[in-house]
Structure formats: structure tokens, C-alpha cells
């Protein structure tokens, strides 16, 4: 005789389908699979994800630079920080820095050479750091400029996102290892 839980599972079976696949990537993989491509489907999907993310970052930052170049009134270099411009901006930057620092500590133990995805993500972070350094130079040259400030915060957010992806990827690897050893 079925329990109440079994009855629930049976009656509401279709409602349990709550997750959705990434249709665009899966369909692309299916088409390539049908055409006989033998490269790893997962690596290809992950690479496309990273490539799309990197492209989005570059577009956002490039647009920021273009706008700065177009409207920017280049002034002599003055050493300033966000907190010099506005106390709230300084506080906001400090909060981002704390999160970045916390997550950097977490990922510092990971070995990037063991995993292609993690290595690629670290490489994207390195590029972001370069962009961040360049943007800081702009801040010193231009002083207060909303586009530059937005770009600085964008780089923090993207960096946090990339660090989270690294942590997720590492957790996934650990979960696989744990699951292999897990017995009822």
C-alpha cells in the first residue's frame, strides 16, 4: 500500500520538473553531435559559457571606455580614490573589496592547472585585474566620472562572479569525489 509520500510523488509527478536546461547550448551540442563532432560536449559548452561571459565583460568595459573617451575631459593626473570623491562610493568599494578578498582566500588553495575550466576562469580574472588597473588610471586622470566609476564597480562584480564560478567548479569536483564514496 503506498504511503502518503508515494501518493504525493505519483500525483504531482509533472510538477516536480522544475529545472530547465540551457536550450541554446544543448541544441548546439546536439547539432554538432549529429554532424559527427567528436570533441567533448561538456568542454565545448563550458568554453562557450566562458567565452560568452568574457565577451559580455569586454563589451561592457569597452562601451565604458568609449563613452569616457567621447565625453571625457582629460585633466592632469591627480592621485585620488573613490573615497576621495564620495564617502559612500568609498564605503561601497570597501564592501566589494571585502567580498573579493574573502573569495580570493577561498580559491587560493585550488590548483588551477588540474582543471581546464578553473584555469580559464583564473585567466579571465587576470584580464579583469588589468582592466581594473587601467580604469584606476582613468579615475586619476579624469576625476569624478560616472562611467569610470561604473566600470570600476563592474569589474568588482565580474570578479566576484568569476570567483564564485571557480568555487562552484571546485565544489562540483569535490561532490563527484564524495558521491563516488557515498553508500547508503
Amino acid at each position, binding site marked *: 500500500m503506498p504511503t502518503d509520500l508515494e501518493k*504525493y510523488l505519483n500525483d*504531482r509527478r509533472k510538477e516536480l520538473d522544475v529545472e530547465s536546461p540551457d536550450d541554446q547550448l*544543448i541544441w548546439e551540442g*546536439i547539432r554538432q553531435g549529429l554532424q559527427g563532432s567528436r570533441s567533448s*560536449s561538456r568542454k565545448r*559548452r563550458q568554453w562557450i559559457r566562458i567565452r560568452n561571459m568574457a565577451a559580455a565583460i569586454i563589451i561592457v568595459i569597452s562601451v565604458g571606455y568609449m563613452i569616457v573617451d567621447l565625453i571625457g575631459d582629460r585633466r592632469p593626473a591627480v592621485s585620488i580614490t573613490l573615497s576621495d570623491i564620495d564617502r559612500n562610493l568609498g564605503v561601497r568599494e570597501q564592501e566589494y573589496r571585502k567580498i573579493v578578498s574573502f573569495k580570493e582566500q577561498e580559491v587560493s588553495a585550488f590548483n588551477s592547472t588540474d582543471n581546464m575550466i578553473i584555469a580559464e576562469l583564473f585567466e579571465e580574472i587576470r584580464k579583469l585585474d588589468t582592466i581594473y588597473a587601467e580604469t584606476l588610471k582613468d579615475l586619476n586622470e579624469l576625476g569624478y566620472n560616472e562611467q569610470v566609476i561604473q566600470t570600476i564597480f563592474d569589474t568588482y562584480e565580474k570578479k566576484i562572479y568569476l570567483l564564485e564560478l571557480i568555487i562552484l567548479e571546485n565544489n562540483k569536483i569535490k561532490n563527484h569525489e564524495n558521491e*563516488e564514496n557515498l553508500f547508503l
Partner: protein
Amino acid sequence: MEETIHINRRVIEKCLEGDIKAQYQLYQQYAKAMFNIAIRFLNNKMDAEDILQESFVTAFSRLEELQNRDLFGSWLKRIVINNCISLHRKRKIKFEEIDEQMHDAADEIESGIPEIDPALVHTAIRELPAKGRTVLVLRALEEYSHKEIAGMLDISVSTSKTQYSRALTLLNRKLKGKIDAD
């Protein structure tokens, strides 16, 4: 339902002719359900996406082997499940015999399951240990008999029943925990 079957027959005929739009139509019709089956088996989105992709490639490549075109959904589901089990085997998750004493756990199931959000139930299923989760999904959601499950996982019927009742108990506990937490 009858209409869906007729539509599927036509779409499958077109797929056999290599019509990409028809293939995509079938993909859209079944992808979400198949993805959720895979993710409940594997508890990992990327693995589930791999299985989904491989299963559709297999299905489209071997479509001419499908005798009864009305059964495309069941046939595809079996491909997905077989691929999930193969992945478990590759990862050396063995569904070996377990201690009969563990069977007592089934007695702990309480009656009176309240109205629970299906998303919570889905998450709780994903959190179950791999072996119990596999048997529970096959039995409770995909409605295979213990005899069929035993054959698929290469275990005894008794082990299938034991794993199932234990998984059901664990799921019950998890759901009670989630409800109490809310």
C-alpha cells in the same frame, strides 16, 4: 493525448528525413522533462546537460530503429535513464546488497504529507544519497517495478526494495526538516 501522438508521428517522419526544424520541435517537447529526470538521477546540472545532449543525439541517430513511433517519449526516457545508469557505473557507484536490518527504516514514514511545494520535493530528492535516489526515482517517479529496477541496476529485488524504503524514509525526514525550517 491522441492529438499529441499524431503530431509526434508526423514530426518523427520529418526527423527521419533529416528535417532540423522537426528535430528541434521534438527537442523542445521533451527536453525539460528529460533534463529533470537526468538531474534527479545525477544531482549535477552539467552531468544532466551532458546526458540530455547525448541522449538526443542517440535518439535522432537511431530513430529508424524505433518501431512504434507513438512511443518516442518512453523510448527517449529509457535512453536517458540508461545513460544515467551508465554514468553511475563509470563513476563506480555500486548498487550492492545492503544489510536487511536497514529495512526497518521504512517504518518511520509518517502519514499526513501536507501541501508541499514541488520545488522543495525536487530539491530534497536531489539531496538524497546517489543509490537510494536512483532507486527512488525509478520506482516512485518513473514507475518501474522492483524486478525491472533490479535488472537495470544489477541488484536483487530485495535490495531494490530496501534501498527504496530507506530513500523514502530519508526523503520524508528531509521534507519534514524543510517544512519545520519554514
